């Protein structure tokens, strides 16, 4: 592949996909946080009747009427959803489902009746877009020519439309960042401060509708819907601040676009396949894969991280129980216990628990007997101390009877508290054992 073919054939579709991904990805953050993810779906389907009507009325594919028609029917969708939700008192998801399926069907119906399909507007384009047909007919010969007016003027029209849209969206998100945030987090106190959540809702929805329509022609509805949800959902798993979530969502969107295009075009090309998958389709698959990966592998909220944390906790509890048992045995005059007994009896632990304790120098194992080292004794004393303080606390302050406090104390002893527990009134635990 030469530079020239890359510039002519690949750069524009790739750029168009990236622009759509970032534009929709940024806005998606506010939809996902307001639990309105389906609104992207609703709007991008429901714009169809607007597009078709504008198309039939003007009998052309002039961009402006199509854009206006589509945005108008996008806003009609938002208004209808709100109306049905209030008057019909149904949940927002149901209201969106009703509105967009009916409007989409209406669009298909008008398209068929009006003979629109004869004029180069077909349902396939609506779904997958026309990314592959975007070619750059006059790419620059040298890098220096790249920024000349003539070359830039030769860029395909969708690229221009999408670039302007992205700029508008970035300005929208940056300037109204805190207003969008508070309206999503706490609509009531936003309203009390004079930041109308209704106004923010319709502003956001107008921009979503505009962005969906602008991205629509090039990349199709499936990618628009995916990009309004997936990058934001991925970023949500990876961050816990709105600002970083928005930034990460943009990065994820770029990665989705780039990887999707590579997998759809360059990889099949490199492998010598004669079949090339749909670019928009592949980007959508990649977007979904990122969401799945983030759910499994997110360092803070992912499934793996949670499993690891639970395991670590279980290990610590098992170790502490083991040390406490040895400590109590010492108190009763048995300086060592049989390792076999220890590993069998302690809750949730296994032989590895004893080995780990030995390895970290808390327990020494001689033959079949295990005993506490000095370090182990200090650690164990702290645990038994917490246990007995808790028992005292539960009897003195919570009014439990002494024979009911061992079980809860057995759990509570593993908590690390910042505040020191009080010494029981009796000076010893409720069973008369000393506080270490």
């Amino acid at each position, binding site marked *: 592949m030469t530079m020239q073919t890359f510039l002519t054939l690949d750069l524009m579709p790739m750029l168009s996909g990236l622009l759509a991904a970032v534009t929709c990805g940024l806005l998606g953050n506010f939809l996902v*946080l307001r639990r309105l993810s389906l609104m992207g779906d609703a709007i991008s389907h429901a714009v169809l009747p607007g597009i078709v009507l504008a198309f039939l009325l003007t009998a052309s594919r002039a961009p402006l009427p199509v854009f206006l028609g589509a945005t108008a029917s996008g806003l009609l969708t938002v208004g209808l959803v709100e109306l049905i939700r209030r008057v019909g008192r149904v949940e927002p998801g149901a209201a969106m489902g009703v509105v967009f399926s009916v409007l989409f069907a209406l669009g298909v119906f008008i398209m068929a009746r009006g003979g629109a399909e004869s004029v180069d507007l077909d349902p396939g384009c609506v779904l997958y877009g026309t990314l592959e047909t975007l070619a750059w007919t006059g790419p620059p010969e040298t890098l220096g020519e790249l920024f000349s007016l003539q070359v830039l003027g030769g860029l395909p029209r969708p690229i221009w439309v999408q670039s302007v849209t992205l700029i508008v969206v970035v300005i929208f998100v940056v300037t109204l960042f805190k207003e969008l*945030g*508070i309206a999503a987090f706490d609509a009531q106190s*936003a309203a*009390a*401060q004079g930041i109308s959540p209704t106004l923010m809702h319709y502003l956001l929805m107008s921009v979503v509708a505009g962005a969906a329509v602008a991205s629509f022609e090039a990349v199709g509805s499936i990618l628009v819907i995916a990009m309004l949800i997936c990058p934001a959902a991925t970023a949500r798993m990876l961050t816990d601040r709105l600002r970083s979530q928005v930034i990460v969502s943009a990065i994820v969107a770029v990665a989705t676009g780039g990887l999707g295009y590579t997998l759809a075009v360059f990889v099949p090309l490199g492998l010598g396949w004669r079949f090339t998958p749909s670019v928009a389709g592949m980007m959508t698959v990649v977007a979904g894969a990122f969401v799945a990966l983030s759910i499994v592998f997110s360092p803070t909220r992912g499934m793996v991280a949670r499993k690891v944390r639970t395991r670590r906790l279980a290990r610590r509890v098992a170790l502490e129980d083991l040390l406490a048992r040895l400590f109590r045995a010492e108190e009763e005059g048995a300086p060592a216990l049989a390792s076999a007994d220890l590993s069998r009896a302690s809750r949730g632990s296994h032989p590895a628990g004893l080995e780990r304790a030995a390895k970290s120098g808390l327990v020494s194992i001689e033959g079949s007997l295990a005993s506490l080292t000095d370090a182990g004794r200090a650690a164990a004393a702290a645990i038994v101390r917490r246990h007995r303080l808790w028992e005292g606390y539960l009897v003195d302050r919570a009014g439990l009877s002494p024979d009911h406090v061992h079980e809860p104390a057995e759990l509570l002893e593993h908590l690390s508290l910042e505040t020191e527990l009080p010494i029981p009134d009796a000076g010893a635990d409720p069973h008369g054992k000393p506080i270490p």
Partner: protein
Amino acid sequence: MNPSASADATTSALVSRPEHSVDSPLAVHAMTVAYHRKPVLWDVDYDATAASLTAIVGPNGAGKSTFVKACLGLVPRATGTVEFWGQPFRAVRDRVGYMPQRESVDWDFPVSALDVVCMGRYRKVGWFRRVSRAHRMAAMSALERVGMADYASRQISQLSGGQQQRVFLARALTQEAELYFMDEPFAGVDASTERAILEVLREIRDSGRTVICVHHDLLTVAEYFDRVILLNMRVVAAGATSETLTDDNLHRTYGGRLTLLSEASEQLARSGQRQP
């Protein structure tokens, strides 16, 4: 402001209801609120006392939260007027603070405790502008006042219920309002948070400002609040806690649930469903 001119203007407006004073931080007159044709508040009249700590008390569904929201224009009023220092709410937004119920927001939202407190400054910051360092410092000192400075950068889902309530209180504080509405500030908090919140509320009152709280715990009303509104769709009684919180008044607020009025409203609601 020219005092004589404003006095003239307000006197004429208040001729029909001389009981309302311009100094009153909150004057509610003949307010009725209905959800889906079922009245929730009926012909409510109330005049708040400045520099007081006032509790709104009443059974579930008595319209306590609705009273607060209707005063702030968060739910539409069917009839009636609400004035703050003799002015409509939109003219005095800066002077009125609001702390909604803790359950009304999504605590999994990606913001830190400090971010939430900064939201109390948004009106002062203004549209389109970023929260400046000075505003952040103000938010931080509000967090300090409620004993939450160490948790400023925690994501809010990692806070306990009591800590979340303190963050909400700090957000209200940083609004620097003269009249506060708080919806159940003591709901579901631990004992030490309850004491801390009460202390802050008393500081606000002692500095000459007014706090009106929806309160659910009848046992603590007399101890915590100097004034009380007993509410059950209507204002059953309002005034100083010591005089108002009588057995008779409480019985009328909580006991007589099936009054003529609630029966009438049930019927209204039923007929409303039949003929939409």
